[in-house]
Structures are given as C-alpha cells and as structure tokens.
C-alpha cells in the first residue's frame, strides 16, 4: 500500500477542479468545494480502480477525513 501522502495526492488528481496541494490527510473530504454525491461516486471508482476495493455507502458514512478513507481501504486490502 502506498503512503498516506501519495494516497492524498493520487486522490486529489481525481478532482480536476482542485488546485494542487489543496488536500491533506486530515482534510474532511466533504469540505471539498461544492461537495456532492458525484464526488462520492468518484471516490468509489477511485478505490475500485486503484486498490480493487469496494467502498460501500456505509463505509463512506463512517469516514470523515482522507486518512479515514486510507485506513478503511488498507484494512479491506488486508482482509481480502
């Protein structure tokens, strides 16, 4: 699994409208400007494409920060 910093950068690239280095591991991802359910779908696609992991609606509800997302993806990879 890549580092949390690499993970944050990789995720940031999914949101083309964000200037570089906007996100940090402790950013609450719902604070991304104009956050919407479309952003949630982008995160689900991101987790599937890069890590082969399924993020459910309840996974998303239980997470706040990018670090939380990283941790949940990491634990799913470990349990696979």
């Amino acid at each position, binding site marked *: 699994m890549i580092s949390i910093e690499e993970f944050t950068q990789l995720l940031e690239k999914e949101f083309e409208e964000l200037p570089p280095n906007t996100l940090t591991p402790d950013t609450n991802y719902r604070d991304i400007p104009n956050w*919407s359910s479309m952003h949630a779908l982008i995160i*689900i696609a991101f987790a599937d494409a890069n890590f082969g992991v399924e993020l459910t*609606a309840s996974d998303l509800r239980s997470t706040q920060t990018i670090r939380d997302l990283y941790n949940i993806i990491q634990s799913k990879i470990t349990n696979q």
Partner: protein
Amino acid sequence: MALVQVNNISLLSISAAVPKNKVFTKDYDYISEQERDMFIKTVGIEERRVAPPHLTAADLCYHSALQIINTLQWDKNSIDAIIFVTQSPDYFLPASSIILQHKLGLSKNTIAFDINLGCSGYVYGLYVLGSMLQNGQIKRAILLAGDKSTLSTCYKDKSTYPLFGDAGSATALEYNPNASPIFFNLQSDGSGEDAIKIPHGGSRYHIQPDTFDEVEIEPGIIRSKRHLQLLGADIFNFALREVSPNIDKLLEFSGISKDEINFFIFHQANYLMNESVRKKMKVDKSKVPYSIHKFGNTSSASIPLTIVTELKDQLQSLQTLLFSGFGVGFSWASCVFQSKNIQVLPLLEIE
C-alpha cells in the same frame, strides 16, 4: 449459471423513438450552477427527452414498430410475436403489448406479453424472443423496449430528476437457419431490490395516506413514496462488481475474444459508472459508443437508442457486437454475436 446459446436468429432491423421535447441540465435550477457542471462532467447528461402527458412508452414503441414494419415491408399477418419490455406500461392491466397488437393491426394469432424489466431488459427480451423463435415454429417477431421514466422522478430529488429520459424502441427478429449463434449470460440478485425502487403503488404497498407525502431524505433529495428512489453508491458498486465478470464469463463461454468485438454497447446508466466499467475491462474507448449525453438514462431503450444514434452507418457489414444491460433488480445480462447487416433506421421524434 444462465449461460445460454440461442441459434438461428437474425437481428434484422432496429428503430428508436424519443419525444421531441428536450430538457437541458443547464436549466435545472433546483441545484447550483457548479453542481450542474459537475453533474454534466461526471454523469454525462447534457440534455434528455421528456414525454408530454399524452405520450407513453407504448406510444413511442408503436411508432418504432410501425417504422420497422413499413421499412421491412413485412406483411402484418406474418408477425408471430410482439413482446414489450417496460416498467411503465399504459395500465396495470391489460399488458400494453396486447393493446399494441391491435393498434398495429397485427393478426389475432400473435403472441403478445410484457416483460417487467428495466436496464437489463433489452438483453433479456432478445433472449426470450430468440428462444421462442429458434426452432422455427414461429418465424418473425418484434421486440419493443422502452420506458417513460420521467413520470416517476421528483423535481426536488436531484439524485433522480436530471438522470432519466424517455424513449421507445423496436427490434425485428427473424428465424434464419444460417444465422450465427447469439450467446447470453443472464443474472439476477434481488438482494438489491431497494437500490432502484418505486416503493408505493404496487400491491405490496398500494396507494396509502402517506403515498404522496414529500419527505426530505437528505438535503436536495425530497420525494414521495410513489417516486423513484436511487441509492447511487449501491448501484455504482453493483456495476463495478458484476458487469465485468459477467462479460468475461460470457466471452469464455462463446469462444469470442474481447479483441474480436467491434462495439460494446452498454446500457447508458451514468457516464462515470460506464467509463469505470470500460476501464476495468480494458476496452478501447472507440469501441464503446455513448448516447447518454443527449438522451440521459433511457432504461431498456438505451441499447437500441445508442445503436440508432451512434452506429447508424456502421452495422451494414459483418460486425461482432456485445450488448450489456445492468441495473434495477438487480438484474443484469450480456449477449455477444456476429451480425451481418442490421438495418438501423433514422431516429423518430414524436410530439
């Protein structure tokens, strides 16, 4: 496992009809301009067609069927079956296909029934009709597929309202002992019943005192129980989990390789979702046509509509085609076959 080979079927012609009335995402002022832009970029829908009150899915399919019958110059007495895949029939009963048998002037010897499926329905319909025709006892049939989904969405529900367009289609099938086989992989998972659902109005929860009460589910999502509900994350995960393995198994069963396929025509669900599936399958973009930008998600009509609008002049020669429909149910199905010369008819726009 429902891996099935259907023989002796030619897909002769495909027709599609949409309402003339266009509705543009940029005019959907229930959400902010930024959200509209994000929606267009990710979900992909810029405009869609919305039927006026007098126009139903059965009407759209009627026009498509008539176009097919006239173009092929089929004697109406020679048509043995008409099947209508829809989740927005004209009435609870009788089945709309039976009304259409009469309206189209088909003979009383025609087999007619409806199939209650949505996104997967076009492929299921091909399977059902193909199976009926393949032993040659009946020879000609028309598959109708379409929905008036805009009837069931709530303007105040941003998760459904801008997503759906109305459309109907007709496909002519004929018994032909020289036709290449059509291979199918058909699947179902009813544990996903809540992901795409109209909760009230059926017999489980018929019209009740609270059926029409509009309730806020979350900000920007207000709807009643007679409206369509969508659980976006669940649907997205379902498609990512199931579509690619379904197609892999189908290809293994058919002996046709991914590289041999000229076009993958997917149900037009959501641009981001379809692109995620396409990338997962490592299929080149040029082989995957889209009509979602102009018509939205048109339920069971989306595969034939995409063929009519995007592949009109490309199916006259020998082609290997793969269709895949996935969604409400959950229900999903794919088929792959070699087509020789499908007559793709011009899109009809109905007032």
